[in-house]
C-alpha cells in the first residue's frame, strides 16, 4: 500500500533528502519518497505496519526540521 502525506512548512531541499533517507530506514518501510516541490511524502508499506511507522516517520522529520508538520492526505 502507498500512503501519502503532506509536509507543511518544508522549505529546505537538503532536509527533504535527509528525511527521505531517514524514513526509508524505518523498519517496515518498503520505500519512502519526498517530493520537495509538491510537499508530498509517499510511504510504501504493509497495511499492518503503517500504524507503527507513522509516529516514527513524524519523529524523524521533526528531528531534521522541527517546524515541519506531517499531515495525512
Amino acid at each position, binding site marked *: 500500500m502507498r500512503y501519502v502525506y503532506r509536509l507543511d512548512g518544508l522549505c529546505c531541499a537538503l532536509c527533504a533528502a535527509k528525511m527521505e533517507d531517514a524514513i526509508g530506514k524505518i523498519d517496515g518501510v518498503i520505500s519512502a519518497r519526498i517530493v520537495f516541490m509538491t*510537499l508530498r511524502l509517499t510511504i510504501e508499506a504493509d497495511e499492518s505496519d503503517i500504524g507503527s511507522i507513522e509516529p516514527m516517520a513524524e519523529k524523524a522529520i521533526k528531528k531534521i526540521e522541527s517546524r515541519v508538520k506531517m499531515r495525512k492526505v
Partner: protein
Amino acid sequence: MSLFGASTIARILISGILLGIGIFADLDETARLAVFAVSFVIAGYPVFIRFLKAIYYRQPFDENFLMTVASLGAFAIGEAPEGVAILLFYQVGELFEEYAVDRSRRSISSLTDLLPDSVNLLKDGEIVTTEPEEVRIGDLILIRPGERIPLDGVVVEGSSMVDTSSITGESVPRKASAGDTVLSGCVSIGGILTVRVTSLYTDSTASRIINMIEDAYGAKSRSESFVTKFARYYTPVVVLSAVLLAAVPPLILGASFEEWVYRALTFLVISCPCALVISIPLAFFGGIGGASRMGILVKGGNYLEALANVDTVVFDKTGTLTEGVFDVVRIIPQDLSEEELLRVAAHAEFHSNHPIAVSIRKAYGKEINAASVGNAEEIAGNGIMAVVDGHDVLVGNESLMSERGIAFERPEDFGTAIHVSVNGAYKGCIVISDRIRCDSCSAVSMLKDVGIKDVAMLTGDLGTVGEHIAGSIGIDMVYADLLPSDKMGIVERLLSEGRSVAFVGDGINDAPSLARSNVGIAMGAMGSDAAIEAADIVIMDDMPSKVPVAIKIAKKTRSIAIENIVFALGIKVLFLALGALGYITLVEAVFADVGVAIIAILNSIRTLRTSSLENRLKGQRTTPIP
C-alpha cells in the same frame, strides 16, 4: 508562511536600524557593544534556536551551524557589525528563497487544481450535490456555465463551449453538444450541459493527469541527484577545512590567530550550498510546470534531461503524423458491384476494432447482419480471414494475398489498398486513406530547427505510399511495410548506432517501442492507455508540433541547470580561494553567498516562462500546409 515572513522582515528591519545606530551614532565603546549585542540577538535568535535543536538531534552540520559559528566568531574577534550583517543577509536570502519556492509551488498547484469538490448529480429528475467519488458510471450529472467538468462523460443534452486549455493547452474553446465526449478538468463556459458519466473519479482524465504531474516531481533528474549527494559531503568537508585553516597556520607558522580565524569564518560563510540545493530542483520543477501549461505532460525531471539529448525522432505514422481516422477514398471492384464488395468487406471486418475495419464499416453505413458472419480470424498486420454467407473471405494487404497465392492488382492511388478475395478468387480492392495532420509539416521543420539530426517515420503501408506521405511532410528516413512487431527492432537498430532516440506513438503496439527508446512520447487524446502508461512524455492535444516544443523546453531547462551548477560552483571556489588568502571581508562573503543563491534562483524561475514558445507555435499553426 506569510506570518513567518512578516515577522522575519520586522526583525531584519529593527536589527538593521540598531546596526546603523551602532555604526554611525556617537557612542562610547560599551554602549556601542551593547547596541550591537541587542541587534545581534534580534537578528539571529531563530537561527541560534534551530542550531541548538540540530545539536540536540545530533545533526548539527547544516547552514544554521555555518551561520551561527561565523557570526559568533566574528563577534568574538571584535568584528561585531560584520557578525550582525552575516545574520541579516543570510535571512534576507532565506526569505527570498522561500518566496521563490512558494511562487513556483503555487503556479504548479494551479495545474493540479483540476478537480471540483462537488458534483451536481441528477437523481430522479432532482439535482443532488454530492462528492465526485460517489458518482457511478452511467449516472447523469449537470454542469452549469463556469463550472469545471468533474468526470469524463458524453453530453446527452444541451450545448456549450468548453475551455480545454487546462487539459490540452489549446486556448480556443471547443463546442460540445449532444453526443460529444467531454473530459474532466475542462471548464464549460457557454450553456448548461447534462452529461452521462463514463468514468469513475479515480480513472477520470483529470485525476490521472494530477497523479502524473505529482509523480513527475518524484523522478529526479541526474543533475538533481548530483546536487543532493554533493551537498551531503560538501558541508562536513568545508567545516573541516575551516577548522584546519583557523588552526594550522597559527600553530605551525606562528601566524596571527585572529587573522586566520577571520579567514576561516569567511570560508564558512561562502561555503553554504543553498544556491545549488534550491536552484537545480527549481529549474526542473519550472521546466515540467511550463511544459504542462502547454499540454505536454513530462513524467519526471530525468525524462526532460533525456529529451534534451535526443538527436533522432521516430514517428509511428498513424495517429501521430496522420489523424488515424481513415476514409474510404475509392472502391475498385472486379466482376461485382462496388456496393457488394463493400458489403462483403464490412461483414468480414465485423469483429475487428482496427481503424481500417472501422472505416470500412463506416463507409458501408448499413446494419451488419451478424448472423451471416461465421468464424473470423485476425492475421496481425496483414488482414482478416472470415466466413461470410458461407464463403471464405480474405480481406487484407498485398502480402496476405501473395501468401495465399491470389493474383491481385495494385491500384495507382496513394493510400492503403485493402484487397478482397472470396473463395480464393480476387474480387477487387478498397483504397483507404488517412489525413495528414495540419501541423505535421511544421513539426518536422521545427524539429530540424531545434537541432534534431534525423526524423524517421515508421509505417505498415507499402513503400511507395509511405514515401509519398513522408515526402509531403519533409521526412527523409522512411521504414515502410512493417509489421507491428518490426517497430521495436528498428528502434533498437537506431539505438545500437549510438543515437539517442525519441519515439512518438499512440497505439497499444507502440508500447514496447515507447519503453525501449530513450524517451517515449505518446499522443494523449488519441492514444491508448497502454501507450500513455508506457510513455515518458504525453502530448495532450495530439499535435506533433508539440514534440519540438517539448525538446526546446528540455534544452532550455538543461542549460539553465548547467548554468547554475557552473556559476554557483565557480563563484564559490573563487571566493573560497580569495577568503583563504585573506582578500575578502566577511560581509563580502555573505554577499557572495546570498547573491549567488538569488541569481541562481532567478535564473531557474525562467524555466516557467513559455510565452515565447506559445507565440511561436501560434505563428506556425497559421502557416498554410501544402
